[in-house]
């Protein structure tokens, strides 16, 4: 038991938010008479929040370096508009258009990263300028009008599902198979970790803890795929999201690049004197944010099936809120990709639940604001207690 409470204490913030997410889900599940977790609604939840979650992944990196990016909503709109021009007006091949759009996103990120990293203008100012600049450019390239419709294949990013191989049964069999494969991977990973710690002679956590952890994950994964399988299966965007989460978590936790980002956010001067190329790292974090903002813009355009001048309004605020609810520190150095995703889900479930209950947007806004404040307040209270 000691080990569990130890682990729990160490990760109280992360687990705290998972627990909060579970409670919020149960709360709305009851309040909506079970609509919240119906297969159709769960699928909707994923589709509705995908573009914010994509942004949150990039944003948490920016926040860990101690910066902020206010421009992502405008950048998403701008790239969405460019992609519409390429695909709809110029009839370009969607694959090529997507690649070009992501490159444009990288260029936008490089533009902002240059000012932040090398000219040392505070990111708040650079990206505030970017927010205005790219919103303006969006309106200019769109001439103030929407462009629609996108080619069918492009729309599949946001509205497609992985194929059903069962051929007409009520359950999506491939989705179930994916669930089982992921379960095997989880169990194998846990097993491998234990083997490695034996090899290096590290202290072993109890077998039961490992089993419990793996079992819990297996149950959650399979419940989730089961629910999805009852509707159309796994949405394409969820595949993209999962791949992003795995890649970025790996980079942040297991690669030198991740260490450098954390070190830079924790103490820029010390990191620099330890040989971290702080300017370069900052620059690339912004380039990365640009690419993800572009992806988010594409996903949103595909979902709406049109590029509009007002697309992406307030996306930046939702993405930033997701990071902070997920445990990122405003002063940098602290935060996780998974945390930001959980933060984004907390907001997403609340949005969805409150809409289902019939609460107006006015109330939703207010309640979300309070949740953000309380989540961060709880975090700071916790830290002052342990310090």
């Amino acid at each position, binding site marked *: 038991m000691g080990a569990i409470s130890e682990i729990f204490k160490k990760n109280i913030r992360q687990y705290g938010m998972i627990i909060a997410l579970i409670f919020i889900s149960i709360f709305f599940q009851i309040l909506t008479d079970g609509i919240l977790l119906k297969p159709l609604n769960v699928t909707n939840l994923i589709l509705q929040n995908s573009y914010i979650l994509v942004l949150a992944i990039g944003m948490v990196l920016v926040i860990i370096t101690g910066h902020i990016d206010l421009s992502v909503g405008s950048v998403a709109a701008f790239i969405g508009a460019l992609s519409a021009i390429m695909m709809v007006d110029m009839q370009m091949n969607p694959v090529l258009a997507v690649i070009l759009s992501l490159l444009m996103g990288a260029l936008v990120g490089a533009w902002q990263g240059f000012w932040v990293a090398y000219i040392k203008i505070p990111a708040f100012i650079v990206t505030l300028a970017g927010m205005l600049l790219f919103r303006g450019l969006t309106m200019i390239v769109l001439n103030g009008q929407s462009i629609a419709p996108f080619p069918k294949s492009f729309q599949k990013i946001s509205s497609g599902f992985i194929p059903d191989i069962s051929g007409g049964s009520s359950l999506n069999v491939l989705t179930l198979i994916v669930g089982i494969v992921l379960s095997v991977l989880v169990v194998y990973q846990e097993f491998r970790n234990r083997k490695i710690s034996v090899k290096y002679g590290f202290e072993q956590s109890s077998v039961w803890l490992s089993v419990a952890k793996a079992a819990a994950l297996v149950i959650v994964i399979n419940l989730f795929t089961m629910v999805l399988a009852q509707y159309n299966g796994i949405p394409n965007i969820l595949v993209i999201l999962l791949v992003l989460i795995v890649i970025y978590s790996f980079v942040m936790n297991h690669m030198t690049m991740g260490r450098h980002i954390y070190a830079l956010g*924790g103490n820029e001067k010390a990191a620099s004197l330890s040989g971290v190329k702080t300017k370069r790292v900052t620059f690339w974090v912004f380039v990365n944010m640009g690419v993800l903002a572009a992806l988010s813009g594409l996903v949103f355009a595909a979902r709406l099936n049109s590029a509009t001048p007002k697309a992406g309004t307030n996306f930046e605020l939702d993405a930033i809120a997701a990071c902070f609810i997920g445990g990122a520190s405003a002063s940098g150095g602290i935060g996780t990709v998974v945390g930001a995703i959980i933060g984004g889900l907390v907001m997403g479930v609340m949005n969805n639940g409150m809409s289902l209950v019939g609460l107006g947007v006015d109330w939703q806004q207010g309640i979300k604001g309070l949740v953000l404040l309380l989540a961060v307040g709880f975090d700071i209270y916790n830290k002052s207690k342990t310090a």
Partner: protein
Amino acid sequence: MSEIILEMKGITKTFPGVKALSDVNLQVKAGEIHALCGENGAGKSTLMKVLSGVYPHGTYEGDILFQGQVCQFKDIKDSESLGIVIIHQELALIPYLSISENIFLGNEQARHGVINWNETTVKTKELLQTVGLSESPFTQVSTIGVGKQQLVEIAKALSKEVKLLILDEPTAALNEDDSENLLTLILELKQRGIASIIISHKLNEIGKVADSVTILRDGQTIRTLDMKQDEVTEDVIIKGMVGRDLTNRYPERTPNLGETIFEIRDWEVYHPTQTDRKMLDNINLHIRRGEVVGIAGLMGAGRTELAMSVFGKSYGRRISGRLYMHGTEVHLNDINKAIDSGLAYVTEDRKHYGLILIDDIKRNISLSSLKKLSRRGVINENEDVLVAEEYRRKLNIKTPSILQKTVNLSGGNQQKVVLSKWIYAQPDILILDEPTRGIDVGAKYEIYSIINGLAAEGKGVLVISSELPEIIGMCDRIYTMCEGRISGEVERQDASQELLMKYMTRSRG
């Protein structure tokens, strides 16, 4: 004169892991200048922070009596309201405000929140006259020199109707003229009945102005001397300050010197923002294999600037000169190049420049050497743990776990983490900038042993230190610096504090 204005009785103050003060007593008579002496880390500044309420009542044990009354200060405001004003080593002036705004900051001449600027200006003028500063009250503080800023601080103290003025190393950053002025001013204040406590390392100053001296060592009161009645010489004070058997403070080492492995020639560096200000001029020095070389110098002599400009040009502009490692010229244009070619710099300010305080020991140790621990950018986390464990054992870092956040470690253990980081980077040359600053005596000895171990392995070590005994005790050869130049070079057997001090103050003029 014999009335006692301040009495501190049995003050004990502990920090996590360190007992900074243990049963300290201090008595200051009305209208006297009382000097507080002791080595770095003896507890002088801590004692003054207790007195001024920086450490509020309840965080320490013991009593403070001021003018016969027991005081329980909650914060600085409390102590200031009784007339106890402290002037810290790092001046607490706001650079972008004017002199008068600074003097009356927090004590604005205002009615209902509206500031009376005429009154402020008049009073500022009076105060500036008292301290002998001929500057306009409207001058921005950042535009005047440190010496004058010091006077502004004193004017600020006077504006609060100070009865007891505490000066923490007031002349450390001042040149001779400014120091002289300041000491004269303190003597004038004494004539007006203002008592002062001066913390100082400069024994000649103490001899000049102090009426009595209290000596602290390792957080304890050693003795209080009356300058007039007792036979007080600098030797007596030094002996009280040092106390320990000098032979035991530095571990034995038999130097085994090899060929020259590092050399700096004709090094010149300009100030990073004031581009015509030459900070370092005509620096030539070399280090041999297995040698511990010291750099002694007063504050502002350019020691840290030298180290950092060499270490990947992390300080200064328009850097010129040559660097040789193992006899071949190297161009260390950024920090990575410096690290790759075998140079390490351990900063004097480990909290701001050395450690990622919110990260754990393990991550700090491997930060400079992730290349060694990773393949294609993927870190081998398990090796990472093993390395950290190895250095925890080797350098005796006292911690329950290598996952401990470095912010929670004592100064000595923090320094060991920084040293681990750089030793693991496997440099040939280590530049250690004030390696024992703010570290207790036991840990110091351990750090010295580590330095000796590095030299024995055939590395070259350059030690920058303000503590002359440390330099003399540790180094095979000592360079002195003054005003950005090398002003002398002394072999170990010829080194004495007096000689070094003479060279350290040998300015060009």
